[in-house]
Structure formats: C-alpha cells, structure tokens
C-alpha cells in the first residue's frame, strides 16, 4: 500500500464569510513532488498555511506523516520545511545569524548548527556574502529562504511560489536542487501559478480554483482529462498556393483569412481536416500545409480557470 505523507480531509477555511478553501481533499504520496497549481487568490497559500500549522482550518483537517497538524503543530513543524511566498528575515542580522537564530528552535547543538548552516549557505550560494540581510536583493532573500526551509533536513518540504524572485540562473539551480531532494526521498509540495515551472519539477499536479480542487494527476493525465473538458474549439491552420475559397460547415466557429487569402486559421468544434482538404481539392486549390493546433496545457488551464 502506498504511504500518504500529506493528507487533507474536507479542509475548509472561511474568511469573513468567504470560503478561501472549500472542502479540499488531497492525498500526496511519500517521495512525490506535487505541484499545486492555481491562479492568484485560488486558495493555494491558505492551504499551505493550514498544512504548515500557521493557521487553523475552519473545518476539516490536515495530516502530515500521520500527525494531525492542528492538534500537534510543533511536532509537524519539526519534520517540515516551509518557504513562504515573499519570505522575510531580520534585516539587521547576517544570513548566518538569521539561520542560527531559527536553528536554535530545533534539536541541534552548536556544532551541528554551524555545520548545517555552512552547508546550506554553500548550497544556496550565499556563503561568501557577509553583508546583513537588509541589503539583500529579493533573489538573495529567496535563496536564503530556501536554506531556512532546509535547516532541519525536513522530511516534507512546502514551497510557496519558490521561483517568484529568482533570476534564470537561480531558477535553474532551484530545479536541480528539487531533483536532488526528490532523489533523497523527500516529499515536496510546490505551490505556484506558473504552469511551466510546476510542469518542469513536479511528478503530479493538482489544480485548485476558487478553493476547490478541480483536477489532479500526472501531467499527461491532466492534459488529456482537461483537454476533453476544457478545450472547446480546435484550431486548424491551412496554407495554400492559390487563394482559399470560403469554407462553410456547421462545426466551424470562426475563420480568419490572411490578406492574400493564402492562409486561414479555422476554429472548429471538431477535426475538419478531411472535410477542408476535400473542399479545397474540389476547387482545385493546392495545399501547402495543413495542421491542427492542439491546445497547450496553458490554454486548457486558462479555459478551466475562466469557466
């Protein structure tokens, strides 16, 4: 039987009468890298805050490694790492001092702390930076946040918009780090509104919209599932040598022609490629290229979000 590291049961959070999270049921297996995807305001951060024991659910519960978060938040915090969105530190202290302060809350002696902090600062490339954190760029603070999240060598890692302030080099290093941590057997929960980012590092994805989980699965599963549900129209791109005559069909929703009429983008409810090619053949129009554009995952998500 597969072990479930992270589990939520009917998780609900109500703010001023509005449900930020509405009856969320999630199960994330051990070692999984789970991408929690959704637009801004969908309830991603609220879910994470409940999972890490920062806020209490209005209803339902969160369980991490068989520990109920609301009942034993401290025990949970000992085994998790959390990188909040817009992470912050004490500006009048160095990175080392900040990490040492936070490390004192865990069961680590002075030598352990020193060793761990040195390793982590090396890992996030801040070892040579001696200035106080108040003078850091957002990217540097984000990297320090990642080091802070890994301070206690957590079994479960929660990352909220982890690449939000990183430069391309930082994003690349972050992806490498996630792979490394995943190989070490850690369960990673990545919350983001950037699909490309999630799709690059996560094995499974859950999509949240208006506080409710609307889809869950691997990337391929989601693409096919949401493709059926979300994408209503197909786009057929036709390029010809002669001008394209007007094509009519009940499934055609929209057709756009270029000025020379040698290129057309036809939006249709079904795959009309056979019908279009026969019509063009009948009119003696030679086809240069004809292809159907499948909706990208991004298009699918957008259509799902907007519904």
């Amino acid at each position, binding site marked *: 039987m597969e072990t479930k590291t992270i589990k939520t049961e009917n998780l609900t959070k109500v703010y001023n009468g509005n449900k930020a999270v509405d009856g969320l049921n999630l199960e994330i297996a051990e070692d999984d890298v789970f991408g929690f995807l959704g637009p801004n305001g969908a309830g991603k951060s609220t879910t994470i*805050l409940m999972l890490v024991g*920062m806020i209490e659910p209005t209803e339902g519960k969160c369980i991490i490694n068989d520990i109920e978060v609301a009942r034993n938040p401290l025990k949970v*915090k000992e085994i998790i790492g959390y990188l*909040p969105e817009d992470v912050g*530190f*004490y500006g*009048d202290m160095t990175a080392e001092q900040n990490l040492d302060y936070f490390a004192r*809350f865990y069961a680590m002696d002075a030598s352990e702390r020193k060793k761990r902090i040195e390793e982590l600062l090396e890992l996030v490339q801040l070892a040579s930076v001696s200035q106080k954190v108040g003078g850091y760029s957002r990217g540097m603070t984000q990297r320090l946040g990642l080091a802070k999240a890994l301070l206690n060598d957590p079994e479960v890692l929660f990352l909220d918009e982890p690449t939000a302030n990183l430069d391309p080099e930082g994003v690349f290093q972050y992806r490498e780090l996630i792979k490394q941590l995943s190989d070490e057997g850690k369960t990673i929960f990545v919350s983001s509104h950037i699909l490309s980012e999630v799709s690059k590092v996560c094995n499974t994805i859950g999509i949240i919209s208006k506080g409710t989980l609307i889809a869950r699965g691997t990337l391929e599963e989601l693409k096919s599932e949401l493709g059926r549900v979300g994408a209503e129209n197909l786009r057929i791109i036709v390029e010809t040598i002669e001008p394209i005559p007007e094509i009519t069909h009940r499934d055609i929703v929209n057709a756009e022609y270029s000025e020379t009429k040698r290129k057309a983008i036809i939006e249709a409810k079904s795959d009309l490629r056979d019908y279009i090619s026969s019509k063009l053949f009948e009119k003696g129009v030679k086809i240069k290229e004809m292809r159907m554009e499948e909706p990208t995952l991004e298009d699918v998500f957008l259509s799902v979000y907007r519904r």
Partner: protein
Amino acid sequence: MEAKGLFNVAKKEFIGHLTSKKFIVILGLFLIISALAMHQGTDNYNERLESYKEQISQIKEVEGHVGWMPDKPSIMLVFMFMSDYIMMLGAILAIAMGFDLLSKEKETRSLKSLLSCPVFRDEIINGKALGGTLALVFAMGTALLISLAILLIFSIVPSMNELAAILVFGIVSIVFLLAYFAIALMMSTVSRDSGSALIYTLVIFFILGSLLPIVGSTVAGMVTGEPPEPPAFHLQHETNESEGTFFYGGGTEEEMQQYQEELRAWSEKRKPITEVFNLISPNMNYQKIAFFISDPRIYSAVYEQSSPSSKSMTITTIVGESSAPSLQEVLGKVWKNILALISFSVVFFAIAYIKFMRMDIR
C-alpha cells in the same frame, strides 16, 4: 510550555534592543539627562543640608530648647529630580522599544519565518516581553548605578534605609516604564504597520500622561464648584525658602474655623474625583509614588490635604510631626498607585497576548 523557545526569543530580543541604534541613542540621552538631574538634585540636597546644619547650630545656642527639631534632608530628594526625566525620556525609550516589536516582523515578513519553526506563539510574545523587560531593567539599572556613582563622587554615602528607598524607586520606575512598553507592544500587535503603532502609542501617551490629569481636575472643578471664599479680611502671605508659605491677616477665629471646615469639605468632595483620574494615568501614579518615596513627610501631608489652597496649613500641621514615615508606611500609603501602575502593564500585555494568539498570519 517549552522554555527553550521563550528564552531563545528573549535572548534575541534583549541583544537586539541593546545593539539597536534607537535604543543606544535614547538610552544615552536618558543617562546624560539623568546624570544632569542627579547633579542638580545633589546641589539642592547640599543646600538643604547646609540650611539644616545652620538651624541645628542656632537651636543649640538656645539654652534648654525642648521644642521642634528640623529633619535632616534625605538624599532621596536627589531622585525626585530624576523622576521627572524618567517620566518623559524613560517613557519615550519604552515606547521606542515596543512600538515595532511585532509590526516590524509583520512588515518584513520575518514573523512567518519565525512561526514556521517549532515554537509556540505564546513563547514568541512572552519572549519579546521578557527581552524588552530585561533591556528596560538594564537601562534603569545603569541609570541608578550612575546616580549612585555621582552621589559617591560628591561624598554622599547613602544609609541602608536610603539604599532600600533607592531600590524601591528603581523598581517603581521600571514598573512605570513597563506600562508604556506594554502599551507600545499592544499597539504594535493590533496596528497594521509600525508608523500607525507609533502614532497611536504617542496619542495614548499624551492622553494618559497630560490630558487625563487636566480632565480630572476640570471634572472635579465642575462637580465641586469654586473653592470657598476666605473670610473678609486682607489676606497676605510671605514666602520663606526654608519654611514655606505663611498666610496672615485679620478676621475672627470663628470665621477662620468655619472657612477651614468648608475648605476641608470641598477638598474631600474633590479628592475622590481627581484620584480616580490620577489612578488611570501612569504618570500621575508614578509621580505620586516617586514623591512619596523621595520626601515622605511633606508629600504624605500634601496629598492628604490634596488642596493647593490649604498648603500653608499643611506645612504648619506637619511641622509639629516628630519623624518622617518609614518606607513601609510610605508604600502603605501609595499601594493603590503601585497596583494601578502594575495593572497597566498587565492589562495592555494581556490585550497584546490575546490579539497575537488569535492573529491570522497570511
């Protein structure tokens, strides 16, 4: 409750206060001004001591004198000067230490990082309060040590009783500072940002410290009306630096007796009203306690009369008293004020605690 988290937070806060620029600047200013006040107070004490010695030598010249003997001035008079500066600069120091304790953490989002560690929320707020309290004890302790050093420089050696009084003065001063620290901490917890927290705290400081005593006096005036008119005679007065103000003039004994009774009745009616307002002002409570500790003989009598127009009679009354009340007796007279001062810290800290424990961190 795990104490590890509490002490970790308290240690960080204590070091943070002691190394912060604002603390160093205000503490420096506080110490310099306290030292100047001590110097001023020491001069005043020496003048009184000279006057006392002069009076004693004059009395000794009168053969067979068995009447009133002047009291030797207490070195606690020196600390009376210091209390004025504590009320202003000390309170500002306490406010500066507390107004951004939590609001700054919310603004910089370091609170989220802190709360993601295995630490209870109450350990955070208690640790912050403990760290701030220790920093205030450090500030007040330094000020008292400097003042003692100044006394010794002037060859004034306090007796054991005076040392006990100095210690009580120091503790009461810390309790006063804690009242404003707790108000600032509460504002820091409930306000959206540090700027608002500072403004609200200063508004409360102004209301409690300056406005409330004025309002109390005005309300008392409205309830009791004007003080009774003295009998129809030409009242004249004379002020003597060492003996106070003396009134003299014509008028019958009966008229004077009736006037004194009316005045006493008016004072007794006014007293509870002003006392209620004074009890809800940390400044007034602190001032009363500090004055009682500094010069118990004078202030016990003055506050008991609590009427500015009866001051001359008050002094006449106390002149006959044999000795100044002991420290225990003094504390017995101001216990309500001490309790009120402690209540400020407790009430405002409790509000900060409850608010912080229930706060949604987003």
